[in-house]
């Protein structure tokens, strides 16, 4: 077999068969995928509430500190499912490969997918591989679609926030996008910042079993914490006030942001959640996410639907939506 992807890898013939058997099935088999039926037959969990999501991954570069496109394409989709409270069960996996893409890189990516799927306890049950001519793609694009089941009694939504609720973030913000900028040499600093890409579905499941007061779980990916919370304020028709000095930002990330004129509130994360909860759920959050910080609350003040921040100086200002993209193709 050649060391690069060729057009025949996508032709449906022998080479494609070999690619799937030697490199995909060997790494991802789980009792369903290797049947290679045109559609996978799945078992329903004991619930009638199904959640489904899809996401495409076009990140550049493909490999960066703390992750790669393979890890991202599992994390992103299971984390999206978890925002509805669903326990991710099954994923589809579709590759669009560019002719000439190195097979070694593909193997590394599939290994990373296998490892992350194991970590997230999710099965990849169906897939697709297409090859496009050289120059028609950028190495590799991946699409995953996820299905999960929502336990009875769980009802998470960005419309659920109410006055008195607390706002938590499960750890420090801004690491993913900063790591990507460094990987792209857009910033030239010698730091050890790595992406926070991680599957959080099992933790969310545990949290939802521990407490009934969780109202909203949202992943602050593109647009960052500010955009996620603006959306919650708007959907829940309430005012949110954040405390700037409570928002966790790693020292390295803070330093890079200050030097490069970036605002960590708007930087993408891939392994963090914003959680809106009743104050009675605070202990449960800290138990499941020891690095969580309570960064603000929902008030009953008018006008509704806006996001404010009390700054480190004690001043109050509004936070708007992200206007100009800080960086494209970060996931």
């Amino acid at each position, binding site marked *: 077999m050649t060391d690069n992807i060729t057009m025949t890898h996508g032709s449906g013939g022998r080479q494609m068969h070999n690619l799937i058997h030697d490199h995909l099935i060997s790494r991802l088999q789980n009792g369903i995928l290797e049947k290679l039926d045109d559609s996978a037959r799945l078992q329903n969990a004991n619930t009638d509430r199904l959640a489904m999501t899809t996401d495409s991954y076009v990140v550049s570069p493909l490999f960066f500190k703390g992750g790669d496109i393979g890890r991202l394409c599992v994390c992103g989709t299971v984390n999206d499912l978890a925002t509805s409270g669903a326990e991710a069960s099954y994923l589809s996996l579709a590759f669009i490969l560019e002719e000439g893409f190195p097979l070694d890189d593909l193997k590394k990516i599939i290994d990373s997918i296998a490892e992350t799927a194991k970590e997230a306890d999710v099965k990849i049950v169906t897939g697709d591989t297409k090859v496009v001519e050289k120059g028609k793609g950028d190495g590799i694009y991946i699409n995953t679609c996820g299905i999960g089941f929502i336990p009875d009694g769980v009802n998470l939504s960005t419309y659920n926030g109410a006055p008195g609720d607390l706002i938590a973030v499960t750890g420090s913000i801004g690491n993913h996008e900063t790591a990507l900028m460094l990987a792209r040499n857009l910033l*030239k600093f010698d730091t050890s910042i790595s992406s926070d890409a991680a599957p959080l579905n099992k933790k969310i499941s545990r949290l939802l079993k521990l407490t009934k007061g969780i109202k909203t779980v949202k992943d602050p990916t593109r647009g960052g914490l500010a955009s996620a919370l603006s959306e919650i304020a708007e959907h829940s028709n309430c005012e949110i006030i954040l405390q700037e*000095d409570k928002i966790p930002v790693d020292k390295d990330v803070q330093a890079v942001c200050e030097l490069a*004129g970036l605002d960590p509130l708007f930087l993408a994360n891939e392994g963090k959640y914003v959680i809106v909860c009743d104050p009675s759920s605070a202990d449960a959050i800290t138990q499941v996410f020891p690095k969580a910080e309570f960064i603000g609350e929902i008030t009953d*003040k008018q*006008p509704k639907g*806006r996001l404010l*921040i*009390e*700054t*480190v*100086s*004690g*001043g*109050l*200002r*509004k*936070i*708007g939506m992200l*206007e*100009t993209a800080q960086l494209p193709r970060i996931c």
Partner: protein
Amino acid sequence: MTGIKEKIRLIQKNIQIPLGKEIKLMEVCGTHTMSIAANGIHSLLPEGIRLISGPGCPVCVTSQKDIESALILARKDNVLITTFGDMIRVPSGKDRLENYKNVHIVYSPMESLDLAMENPEKEVVFMGVGFETTAPLIASTITEADKRKIENFSTLCLHKTIPAALELILSSKDSEIDGLILPGHVSAVTGSAYYDFLQDQKTPGVITGFDGLNIMESIYLLTRMILESKTNILNNYTTVVNKKGNTDAMELLDIVFEPSDADWRGIGVIPGSGLKIRDQYKQFDALEKFPMDPLHIEEPKGCLCGLILMGKVTPPECRHFGTSCTPLRPVGPCMVSSEGTCAAWYKYGRGDKNSDR
């Protein structure tokens, strides 16, 4: 962290303005404009104090004609332009530097020299904007290019200096500025004695650092001086600024540059407010290498950037602000630069009538 908030609250209580009196303070420097907005300082001040942004955003004060000159160079096949980031987005007519592949963003002007060595068949032109803080960097890049005998490097020298612009603003007939929040970084280079000329303008000033506490302290000091009719220049950033400044940097400035007239956006030519490369280094002057006569490009119709830079109007008074002019589609430079007054007002919600509680 709470320590800072408490200290600021204490200062806040001590900033008191007699009923009916209005005090107008100008923050000269764009970094202050951003920090004031980011810290929500406006929400901490009593009714009678107005903060007005001044001319200290390098991108904002670059004239339409100078941006057109950079574009003329960018359109040449054999030229590579290097510049600081924000500059590429400033519109000139229907064009902007962003549209050209031969425009490179650099973090330090020295990167231009490496680029020149790597591309001996091209001329690398650095677009030199900025005040006394950045000008020494360009000066040392020029002396370094001279030392390394790099012949395909030059600078489009658009540097400006603060004193003449401040004098113009303070002496203009309808100036209502009562006190100045003076720039921290510029003063670190120039030294505090640089502002002695302000004594003639009978306007007090305080050299200020960039955190919320330092800014609030300076506002307190200024209001006290104004109410007591004092016109001193105080240094409230003593950890970084001394009387003499960075004498090495100032000497280097004097070796490479001489004072010249400069064209400020919306204001026009201010005599002695710019820096020109001295004859001794004229081989590094892009205007010597590429004599240009840029077409007159009209400022965008209705754009009030010039008046905003003079502190005469606030962004919401411009009909473009927040409607046809946003960070995504800026009309004028004050919305382009992250240090621009309009960008700060837009990003941090000032001018939104609902933003104050």
